[in-house]
């Protein structure tokens, strides 16, 4: 071999090495470029909506279309913080919507607990191995008896799982999971890709949830005190807009002489009186933790024992009614000076009602259906200015605390037989 040949072969080797480096850099660049393209594509899609359902569908859709993950699930953290709930799935024969995973159970639960990504490529083998160990340890009395498996959502024959905690400022929003029936289906690149989607998904989900919460809070505050509305949002009280049946005490009030007054007075005067009256009554409803179901002009309907359960609904209702009459009596003095002949009539009844959201998307109202609301309204209609009429059940609950006068049974619209009613004139303080 001549010297020249040796030189040129050395040069060739060096050129080949350089070409390898260039190829490697090109591959890296191509990977980077495709990562950025993926980020752009997915972020454009994810940020296009504030609807939580849509966000979840877009995330899983993009994972399949752009990244090629065929089986994916998105679980959201429950407000109480001890479990996750399946919120969206893709690529499952039997989607397990609403299935729960306790924090700490299985790959998903441990990822949520540790807030760290986990990739497992041998779920099936590991499970069989551990079941064998359990049998041995049980025989030696070192493990509790039983051969059950914790039921977890996902592929029945799952071998590979890659699960990522979705975090927003250290707060767990949920867990994003991809699965495969093949072992070792995922590698480090899949981790990178999942992290890219996960970060964006976490923010989008959080935004959608915040938006949903503000929207719901606004809706709830129309009926409930701000404190109660927040309690409901945080999961500390049941959602009152879900249909349910409960025993409630219903208070109905309206102003005697209001129709005549509204017919003769200027609209501005009517609005002024209503504003004053609503403000005063509203304060008392809040103070006694009642629920304002609705008001129509001068009429108001207030519940006790829903959505916030109280042990003394009847007594609270009676106390509020007595205070309302006292307050209105000072208002009527002023109104009378202005020439308005107004007075307050109140009816109180107690009984079971079906309560929940009534209406349609975008315009839900909280409402109750049952004889009890009708009875309270009719008693209110019978009450003269300054009077509180209560049903026999309410009077029975008040026992000795209520100062009542019996009335002759009333014939009321919607009631086949005369109804027993009492006039509440005052309340004794509890001993």
């Amino acid at each position, binding site marked *: 071999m001549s010297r020249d040949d040796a030189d040129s072969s050395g040069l060739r080797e060096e050129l080949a090495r350089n070409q390898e480096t260039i190829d490697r850099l090109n591959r890296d660049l191509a990977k980077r470029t495709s990562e950025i393209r993926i980020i752009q594509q997915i972020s454009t899609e994810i940020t296009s909506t504030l609807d939580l359902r849509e966000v979840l569908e877009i995330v899983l859709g993009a994972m399949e279309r752009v990244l090629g993950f065929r089986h994916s699930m998105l679980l959201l953290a429950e407000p109480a913080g001890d479990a996750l709930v399946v919120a969206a799935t893709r690529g499952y024969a039997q989607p397990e919507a609403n299935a729960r995973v306790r924090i*700490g*159970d*299985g*790959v998903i*639960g*441990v*990822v949520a607990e*540790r807030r*760290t990504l*986990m990739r*497992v*490529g*041998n*779920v099936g*083998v*590991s*499970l069989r*191995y*551990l*079941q064998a*160990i*359990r049998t041995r*340890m049980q025989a030696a009395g*070192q*493990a*509790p008896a*039983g051969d*059950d*498996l*914790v039921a*977890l959502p996902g592929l029945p024959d799952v*071998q590979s799982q890659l699960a990522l905690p979705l975090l927003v400022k250290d707060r767990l929003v949920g867990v994003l999971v991809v699965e495969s029936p093949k*072992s*070792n289906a995922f590698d480090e690149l899949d981790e990178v890709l999942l992290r890219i989607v996960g970060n964006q998904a976490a923010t989008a989900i959080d935004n959608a949830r915040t938006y949903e919460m503000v929207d719901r809070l606004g809706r709830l505050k129309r009926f409930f005190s701000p404190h109660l509305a927040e309690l409901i949002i945080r999961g500390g009280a049941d959602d009152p807009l879900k249909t349910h049946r409960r025993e409630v005490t219903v208070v109905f009030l309206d102003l005697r002489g209001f129709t005549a007054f509204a017919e003769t007075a200027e609209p501005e005067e009517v609005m002024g009186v209503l504003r004053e009256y609503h403000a005063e009554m509203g304060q008392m409803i809040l103070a006694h933790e009642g629920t304002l179901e609705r008001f129509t002009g001068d009429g108001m309907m207030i519940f006790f024992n829903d959505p916030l359960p109280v042990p003394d609904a009847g007594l609270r209702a009676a106390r509020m009614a007595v205070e309302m009459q006292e307050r209105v009596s000072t208002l009527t003095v002023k109104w009378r000076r202005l020439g308005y002949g107004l007075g307050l009539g109140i009816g109180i009844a107690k009984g079971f009602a079906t309560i929940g959201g009534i209406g349609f998307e975008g315009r839900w109202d909280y409402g109750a259906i049952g004889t009890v609301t009708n009875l309270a309204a009719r008693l209110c209609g019978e009450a003269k200015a300054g009077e509180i009429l209560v049903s026999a059940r309410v009077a029975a609950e008040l026992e000795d605390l209520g100062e009542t006068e019996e009335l002759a049974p009333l014939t009321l619209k919607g009631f086949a037989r005369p109804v027993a009613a009492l006039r509440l004139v005052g309340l004794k303080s509890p001993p």
Partner: protein
Amino acid sequence: MATLPDEIRAAMQGVVPSHVVTCAADGTPNASAISQVYYVDADHVALSHQFFNKTKRNIEENPQAAVWLIHPETFETWDLELVFDHSETSGPIFDVMNMQIEAIASMVGMKGIFKLRAADVFRVVSVTKTSGERIPLSQIPRADR
């Protein structure tokens, strides 16, 4: 100097059990199947220590170990010569191994019972790809089968 080739990583995902051979102080060998040999870096692997068993006792007496790995798809095999380096009870390697064990254990109601006590880290002394070098069954004398 990197010892472990990239292609070996698929054999370190625990799909097919691996085998580890150790020796007691008097030279008595012990072979046992283990669920997973964990990849730490190109020169180190980790074995999980859940129970105090013969392997663990032997390592304390003699730090040398041999591991046989099987690729779950191609069935290629590798022989690894190892020397025990140190045990970890916290840190990234321990956490990764611990999380996996906890995830599976929680599914069979063994959380807290079947748990990782330590990640035993070994230095890789040599790696030999052994596919095709095994003695064919036909060459083993019938009496030894």
